[in-house]
C-alpha cells in the first residue's frame, strides 16, 4: 500500500513552491503562467477581496457583545463594592452598623484595628467606615509600624451620629453631638419617664491592647420637669444606689420589710434628699438614666475609689439643682478635665454654671 504522498514531486507540478505561495497569498495575478495560473491568481484575489455589506451585517451585535463582555472582564469590582457598602451602611443601617463598629472598637478586636494589624482589606474597610463617622483608625495606607500610644492629653474633636433610646419602645432619632476628648464617642440617652427627660454624662476609658486610649463618652444629664423647668441635677449616680433603689422599690411595693437593709435604705434616703428628691423620685430618676450597661470588657468605676488598672472606667458626675426653682432656662457647660497619662483618672464634670431664673 502506498503512502498518500508517494506521487509528491513525481507528477508534473504546475507551480513551484514559491509560485504557489505567491499565488495563495494573493501577491500575483499574472505569473509566468498566462493560462490557469493567472486564472487561479484572479480567483484567489477575488476570494480575498473586500467585505460585502452582508458580511458585516452583524457588526452592531458584535459591538454590543464586546461592550458587555469587555466590561465584565476588565472592570474592577472592589472599589465599587466598597462605595456601595459605605453608602448602603451610612444611608440605611447607620445605627446598626455603628453599633457593630462600636462593638468592635470596644472589644478586644478593636486593638487590632486601632493598631492597624488587621488584614489590609479589613483594615481599610474598618478605617473608611469608622473615619466616615469620625473615629480615627489607621488605614493600611498610612499605617506606621509601632504607633505611639494613644494616651494623650491633646483633645481631638469628633462627631458621631450615634443615638439610642434607653427604652425599647422609644423612637430612634439621629442627631449630632460634639465632644472634646481623644477619640471621643458621644452618646445621648433620652428617656421619657414620668414626664422627665434625662441626659447623662459619662466618661469611659478604654484600653487598646497594651496601649491605653482614653475614650470619653459624654452624655449630658439633665432633668426636665412637667412644669417646663429644666434643671441640672447635682448628685452622684452610681450603680449601688440604683440597686438600693430597686431594693427600696421592692420593699415599698410589697411592703414586706423583712429583708430590708436599714442602713442601705438610709443611704438612699440621704442621697435622695441631698439631690432634692424624694426617694421615689430619686429612684425613678436613677431608673431613667440607668448607667450604660458595661460590655464584657467594661467595668464600672465608682468614684472616688480609684481602681488600679481598669479596662474601662466609667465615672459620672451629676449635680442637680433643687427642682423647686421654677427655672426656665438652663445652660450646661461640659468641661472635660485634661486627660493625663494616668490610666484611671479620666473624668469630666458636668457643672451647672448659669441658672437664670425669671419670674413667670
Amino acid at each position, binding site marked *: 500500500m502506498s503512502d498518500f504522498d508517494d506521487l509528491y514531486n513525481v507528477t508534473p507540478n504546475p507551480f513551484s513552491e514559491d509560485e504557489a505561495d505567491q499565488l495563495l497569498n494573493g501577491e500575483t495575478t499574472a505569473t509566468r503562467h498566462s493560462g490557469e495560473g493567472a486564472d487561479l491568481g484572479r480567483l484567489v484575489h477575488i476570494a480575498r477581496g473586500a467585505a460585502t455589506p452582508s458580511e458585516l451585517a*452583524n457588526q452592531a451585535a458584535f459591538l454590543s457583545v464586546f461592550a458587555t463582555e469587555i466590561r465584565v472582564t476588565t472592570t474592577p469590582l472592589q472599589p465599587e463594592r466598597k462605595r456601595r457598602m459605605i453608602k448602603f451602611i451610612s444611608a440605611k443601617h447607620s445605627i446598626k452598623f455603628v453599633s457593630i463598629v462600636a462593638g468592635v472598637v470596644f472589644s478586644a478586636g478593636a486593638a487590632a484595628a486601632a493598631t492597624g494589624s488587621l488584614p489590609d482589606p479589613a483594615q481599610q474597610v474598618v478605617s473608611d467606615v469608622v473615619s466616615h463617622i469620625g473615629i480615627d483608625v489607621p488605614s493600611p495606607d498610612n499605617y506606621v509600624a509601632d504607633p505611639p500610644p494613644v494616651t494623650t492629653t491633646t483633645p481631638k474633636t469628633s462627631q458621631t451620629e450615634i443615638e439610642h433610646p434607653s427604652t425599647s419602645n422609644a423612637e430612634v432619632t439621629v442627631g449630632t453631638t460634639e465632644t472634646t476628648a481623644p477619640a471621643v464617642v458621644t452618646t445621648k440617652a433620652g428617656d421619657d419617664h414620668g414626664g422627665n427627660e434625662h441626659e447623662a454624662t459619662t466618661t469611659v476609658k478604654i484600653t487598646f491592647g497594651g496601649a491605653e486610649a482614653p475614650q470619653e463618652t459624654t452624655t449630658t444629664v439633665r432633668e426636665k420637669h412637667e412644669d417646663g423647668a429644666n434643671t441640672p441635677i447635682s448628685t452622684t449616680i452610681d450603680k449601688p444606689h440604683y440597686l438600693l433603689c430597686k431594693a427600696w422599690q421592692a420593699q415599698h411595693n410589697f411592703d414586706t420589710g423583712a429583708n430590708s437593709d436599714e442602713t442601705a435604705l438610709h443611704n438612699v434616703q440621704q442621697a435622695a434628699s441631698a439631690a432634692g428628691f424624694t426617694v421615689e423620685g430619686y429612684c425613678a430618676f436613677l431608673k431613667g438614666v440607668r448607667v450604660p450597661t458595661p460590655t464584657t470588657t467594661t467595668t464600672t468605676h465608682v468614684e472616688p475609689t480609684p481602681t488600679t488598672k481598669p479596662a474601662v472606667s466609667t465615672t459620672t458626675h451629676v449635680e442637680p439643682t433643687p427642682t423647686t426653682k421654677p427655672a426656665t432656662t438652663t445652660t450646661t457647660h461640659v468641661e472635660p478635665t485634661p486627660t493625663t497619662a494616668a490610666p484611671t483618672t479620666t473624668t469630666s464634670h458636668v457643672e451647672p454654671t448659669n441658672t437664670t431664673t425669671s419670674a413667670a
Partner: protein
Amino acid sequence: MTCHRVHLCAVTSFGTDFTLGEKTPTVHEKTRRYGEVLSESFSGNSPGEDDLEFIVVLTAARAGREWAATHLYRQYHPRLIRYLRSQEPRAADDIASETWIGVIRGLQSFHGEAPQFRTWLFSIARRQLAEFRRTAIKKHATPTDNETFTAMESGELIDNNIVEEISGQEAVQIIKDYLNHDQSEVIILRVLGDFTADQVADLMGRTPEWVRINQFRGLQKLAEIMKQKIGVTL
C-alpha cells in the same frame, strides 16, 4: 506633544486622543502618529507598519475602545465568515458569533501580533465548527438539494459567474465545491487566513508535508477545472 517617556506617552495618548468620538483619526492615522513612539519601545527588531497598527488596535480593544473592536471585526470577520460559510453555510453566522465571543473573552490574555491573532481566531473558529458538527450529528441532517449537485457536475457554478460578477464568497465556494474537504480547507485557510503551510499544519493538527501535498493537489485540480470549464479567463 513631546514625549520623553516612551511608554507613558503612548499610554497617555490612548487615554486622551483616542477617545474623541467621531472626530478621532482613522486607525491608520493613529498608528502613524504613534508609530515612532511605539517603535522606540521595541528593543529588538522594529515592527512593520501592520504590526504597529495591530499593537495599537489590540491595546485599545483590551481597554474597551469600541473603535478598536470595530477595526478588528471589519478586518478579520469577512474572511472568517467566508471560511465558515464554505464549511457550514447554514450555521456559519452562529459559529462566527461564538468565535468572536471567544475572542472577546480571551482578549485580555492574548499575547502576540497579527499572525498569531489570525491563527488564534481561526483556531477558535475551527473548534466551534467541530463542536457544531459534533452536536449536529445528533440532530437532523440538512440535505443538500439536487440542484446544487447538478450545477456542480455541469460546471454551472463557474460558467454562470463572470469574473467581475462573482463575490468573494462565491470564489471561495468554487474552491470548496471542486476540491475534496482536506484540499479545499487547506487552500481556503491559506487564502483567507494568510497562513503559511506550517501555520495551516499547526491549525489543522497535521504535518507541513501533509498540508503541502493537499495544497499541491488542490491547486492542480483547480487549474485543470478552470481550463476545461470556464472557457473565459477569470
